[in-house]
């Protein structure tokens, strides 16, 4: 239900912009919703008492991979790959967008404000645009 609503919202927003939408990384919320939907019963069965933090669930599902459902197996790879990609984008944007930051947001101070400025700019380099999208900020 929720995922559908969000998906609809996403389709709608990309239609709005008309420009070809680059592939999106999943938000944390959507990534773990997928994990809960596809692996929830495996987690409850195989990883009882374990928590999401510090990679315990991922490790548990891996250790029990012969007993994990096929749907869940496919999902784990997708979900953690997407999360990794997003995290990488969030930590690397300053490097990737360095020129755009100087060019378009030169007078702005403070990294939060600079980023907010950058996100609002329509014209940034392709790499910078992609990294902002991968980071989930636009």
């Amino acid at each position, binding site marked *: *239900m929720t995922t559908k609503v969000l998906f609809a919202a996403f389709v709608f927003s990309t239609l709005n912009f008309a420009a070809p939408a680059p592939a999106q990384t999943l938000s944390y919320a959507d990534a773990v919703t997928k994990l809960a939907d596809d692996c929830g019963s495996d987690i409850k069965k195989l*990883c009882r*008492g374990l928590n999401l*933090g*510090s990679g315990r669930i991922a490790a548990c599902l891996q250790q029990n991979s012969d007993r994990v459902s096929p749907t869940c197996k496919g999902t784990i790879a997708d979900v953690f790959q997407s999360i990794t990609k997003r995290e990488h984008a969030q930590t690397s944007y300053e490097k990737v967008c360095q020129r755009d930051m100087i060019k378009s947001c030169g007078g702005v101070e403070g990294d939060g404000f600079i980023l907010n400025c950058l996100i609002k700019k329509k014209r940034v380099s392709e790499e910078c645009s992609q990294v902002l999208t991968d980071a989930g900020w636009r």
Partner: protein
Amino acid sequence: MRQALSKILFLVAATFLTPAAALSQEVSQERIVEGLGKLTMAAPAIDLEILRQEAIDGRDQPMSALPNWKKIAKLPQMVVEINFENDSVAIDPKSYRTLGLLADALHHPNLWDYKFLVVGHASSTGNEKHNLELSDQRAAAIKEALATTFAVGPKRLYSIGVGEYLPIPGSDNAASSNRRVQLINLGVFQK
């Protein structure tokens, strides 16, 4: 899931005193960012031990009656429902999404300069000392999940459990709505 989300939505709406129209909306990253981001005053310095002791000594008094809690009660905050396995720190997969939404919000540029306090509350069902310990462990588990799986800077996060000592004012202390997690904006994080 749907039920949990509608509960969260209700609590969020109640916290921000927004009009009833909010009830028809999905709880979203935007709403969390907006709700947690409106810090208009300097956040007071906090001491977790003092807060814990004050909650224990306060015995069911509302936050507003306790001097140190009163100070942080005015900060931007929200209440969410995160379900755990019975008597365990394992977060129910059905509540992963709520945690994910919080994580997305904490990664938003409008919030990433702030630090946050995760407060775990219990209802009065069960032994009160056990409730205090479990709520503390659960709040710590949420902090840990946010800081590892969801890559929120660990130094931006604090956690404390207050057991059944700070029930929602006017509620039945045993009501399940008192089992809740409060997230409070503690002000600018000094790197």
